[in-house]
């Protein structure tokens, strides 16, 4: 395992094939008679020549150099790395879902449209919203979609509102999405309890406020207790409230953004709804809105006639238009619907209870060993600070790297930005108490190692296929492809 895995191009031997194509059963004409030579490749693409076993062994070797939830505990804060149920995978692979074309006649895809329709309804109920679009491909894509609707809403009312407010604990995508939607961002500081500072919010809002973007519970794992006052302040100024649903796993069936005063919500189905992260994607970021924003939804939506025929509705003249080709990441939506039907509303609530109980248990047990900048009850995740280890010459990064030696994926580190040497832990509900206990013991052991044998941490990881990598060199002298051409 510690051997380097050659690049796939390095495995190539001229003359080998791994494909099987049909013979040409139509009368063949020289291609240059069909397409002018000047449009054809001067030389073939330099792709590797392999046989099937090469391909299988190469990717199997790569898979063994990778770590997923099925390999072990993955307490990555704000990412909700819960178990990815296998029935979801099977369902998405049914020919009736995987082998259908987006432009087929609607009568030939009624099952797919019904699934989307039901999912729209279920997600609307879960978030307390009036209508949901399943178009956005990811959380950030949902944020941008939501903000474009907010922009269209204000413009329709003849108001020029140019500013989006975000707390300093917000995800980086929030201000980035605001910029892409044409807004300026105002960042407000959190108060000493880690919550929105109402005075700062009051000072920031005005007749140029388009929206406040908020994650609730926030990225510190804390519920914004004053959410109703916050909503009141923003709405009184004429702004709207945007809910970043990254942390929805804490409150399913317990509280709904729609009831808290939010006007627009996105959910990350690849977090809350158990769809796999795929090594970075695909995800899905459906957006729900209150009725006043429904006319601005991107097209198309799935609707149903009185006699139960499902159809696609492109949307009216106020729609912000398309945000993606076709109908969203359908295969991911199938998985999310499957998950919802595996649990139902009562057990979805139980999911959140277990996720929150697990987080509080871990926080309580780790408190004596790591600084907890925000003590007290948390929701589904919590933050620790590694700053107490600095006196041993050890940083949070070193703790994370040492965790790799024990077979864990480390928590999120150095985020949120307003916590020094931050360690952000989200256990999720699908981990057993034994798993949590073993991880806690490891974290305690590492804290002790930091004091007694800091080099163990500073040189970690010791057991992985490569040691700590030189990221500075990668950025300074970028090597971004194998330059086989």
């Amino acid at each position, binding site marked *: 395992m510690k051997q380097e895995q050659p*690049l796939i191009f390095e495995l*190539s031997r001229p003359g080998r094939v791994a*494909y099987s194509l049909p013979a040409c059963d*139509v009368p063949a004409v020289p*291609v240059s008679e069909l*397409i002018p030579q000047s449009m054809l490749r001067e030389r*073939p*693409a330099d*792709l590797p020549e392999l046989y099937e076993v090469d*391909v299988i062994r190469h*990717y*199997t070797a790569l*898979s063994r*150099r*990778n770590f997923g939830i*099925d390999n072990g505990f993955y307490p990555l804060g704000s990412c909700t790395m819960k*178990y990815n*149920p296998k029935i979801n995978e099977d369902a998405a692979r049914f*020919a009736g879902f*995987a082998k*259908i*074309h*987006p432009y*087929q*006649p609607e009568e*030939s*895809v009624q*099952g797919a449209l019904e699934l989307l329709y039901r999912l729209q309804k279920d997600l609307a109920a879960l978030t307390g919203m009036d209508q949901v679009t399943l178009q956005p*491909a990811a959380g950030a*894509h949902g944020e941008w979609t939501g903000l474009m609707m907010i922009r269209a809403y204000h413009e329709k009312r003849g108001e020029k509102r140019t500013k989006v407010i975000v707390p300093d604990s917000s*995800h*980086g*995508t929030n201000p*980035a999405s*605001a*910029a*892409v939607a044409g807004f300026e961002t105002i960042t407000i500081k959190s108060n000493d309890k880690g919550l929105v500072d109402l005075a700062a919010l009051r000072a920031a809002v005005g007749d140029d406020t388009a929206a406040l973007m908020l994650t609730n519970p926030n990225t510190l794992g804390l519920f914004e207790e004053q959410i109703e006052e916050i909503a009141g302040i923003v709405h009184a100024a004429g702004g709207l409230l945007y809910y970043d649903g990254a942390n929805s796993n804490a409150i399913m*069936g317990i509280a709904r953004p729609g009831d808290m005063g939010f006007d627009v919500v996105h959910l990350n189905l690849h977090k809350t709804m*158990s769809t796999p992260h795929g090594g*970075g*994607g695909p995800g899905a970021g459906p957006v729900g809105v209150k009725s006043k924003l429904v006319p601005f939804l991107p097209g198309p939506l799935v609707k149903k006639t009185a006699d139960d025929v499902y159809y696609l509705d492109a949307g009216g003249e106020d729609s*912000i*238009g398309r*945000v*993606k*080709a*076709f109908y969203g990441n359908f295969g991911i939506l199938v998985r999310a619907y499957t998950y919802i039907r*595996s649990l*139902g509303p009562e057990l979805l609530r139980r999911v959140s209870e*277990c996720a929150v*109980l697990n987080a509080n248990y871990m926080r309580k047990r780790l408190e004596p060993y790591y600084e907890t900048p925000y003590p007290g009850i948390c929701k589904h995740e919590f933050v620790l600070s590694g700053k107490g280890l600095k006196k041993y010459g050890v940083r949070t990064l070193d703790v994370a790297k040492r965790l790799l030696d024990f077979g864990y994926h480390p928590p999120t580190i150095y985020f949120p930005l307003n916590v020094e040497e931050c360690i952000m832990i989200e256990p999720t509900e699908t*981990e*057993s108490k034994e798993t949590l206990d073993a991880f806690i013991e490891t974290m305690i052991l590492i804290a002790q190692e930091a004091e007694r044998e800091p080099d163990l941490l500073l040189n970690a990881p010791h057991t992985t*296929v490569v040691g700590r*990598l030189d990221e500075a*060199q990668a*950025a300074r002298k*970028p090597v971004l*492809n194998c330059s086989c*051409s």
Partner: protein
Amino acid sequence: MKHRYLPMTEQDQAEMMKVIGIRSLDELFADIPDSVRYKGTLPMSEALDEAALFKHLKQLADRNTDFDKAVCFLGAGIYDHHVPVVINHILSRSEFYTAYTPYQPEISQGELQAIFEFQSYICELTGLKVANASMYDGATALAEAGALASGHTKRKRIVVSRTVHPEARAVLRTTARGLNLEIVEAGYANGTTDLEQLAASVTDQTAAVIVQSPNFFGCIEDLRAIEAIAHRHQGLLIVSTNPLALGLLESPGRLGADIAVGDAQPLGIPASFGGPTCGFFAVTEALMRKIPGRIVGQTVDRNGKRGFVLTLQAREQHIRREKATSNICSNQALLALCASVYLSVMGKSGMIEVAQLNVQKAHYTAGLFKRSGRMSLPFTAPFFNEFVVRLPDDAEAGEVNRRLLTEGFLGGYDLGLAYPELKGHMLVAVTERRTKEEIDRFVERLEAGLA
């Protein structure tokens, strides 16, 4: 409340509550004001046991006419190509599909190397030096390319050909509203971009010219001529392309494109009702630090051993926040892996062969239409695996397709939906999967169905 995904036993719960120092779970939610607490049970779909759920999903799936039940001549951005059997086996390795973005490189070398190889493949196909780790789809990749061009040239006007996929142009328009860009469309003649109109649209205010080749009608654009027009006033040339066609067609990079984008769906990705697919995005070296999304770079570990990391992150939202080059975070990594496996399977000769098969079969089919008498081919420009058919005056494409469906065919895309002037025209795609027998019968049934 037992469930197979939830390990919490009553005893676990009691022990944990004791450690925390609470007597009821409700205390954990005491910070949520009562006025916003949800009382009761959410009106959502009910839970089903595993067998019942499987059956329910199968029933929904079976109500769709999939490619095993009907012979597909639909393309228009999503194609029914053969998916090599090994792909699903590799994509089912849960070390890949249950992993997060590779933030911890030491335990993510597999994913990082796979993406590095994907980037290499995209560079090789497109003839450009730098590719990212994927975008949501071809349409959003195209819109992001427009945004990049505007930022790079500090110009606000983008000229896009009407032969670019209508949905990609729609996404571009939405994106343009956000960034206050002006979109100018250039028309077409004989199936390809009208070069005179294009030249007249390009000024010293033009950030980029965007074309697609093979374009939405299947026709291959004259990229050499378009390149000269696009660069006349120092704007960028953005080419959206079909990666499978690049087995045969000259790469956009060699023809002078600054940015090549497209959808990798033809490379082994299931049609899946249009998603998830995988956008790709490649640029010249000059634009390297402006590219959106994740990029993997090669480096060394502390012992000098080769390794891979996410790099050039100073462009990205989690570092730069509102000043990032894009807001993209999640991408389509698993489908990038899918495309990589496809290209590994096809290799050098397979990519040529599969592209040739598409060309041969599509041209054979076009020949049948040309000879049919009832139908004609309105465009004579060279094409790849798709072409436009004009139906007789009284025929309505949607109606023709509904009839074809009853005979086991998914007919071509009704062009009247996106191009009012092409009402009664159908876009027919023919991949390597179509046999001569299927093709002959399709043309025969289509013709027979015309009144």
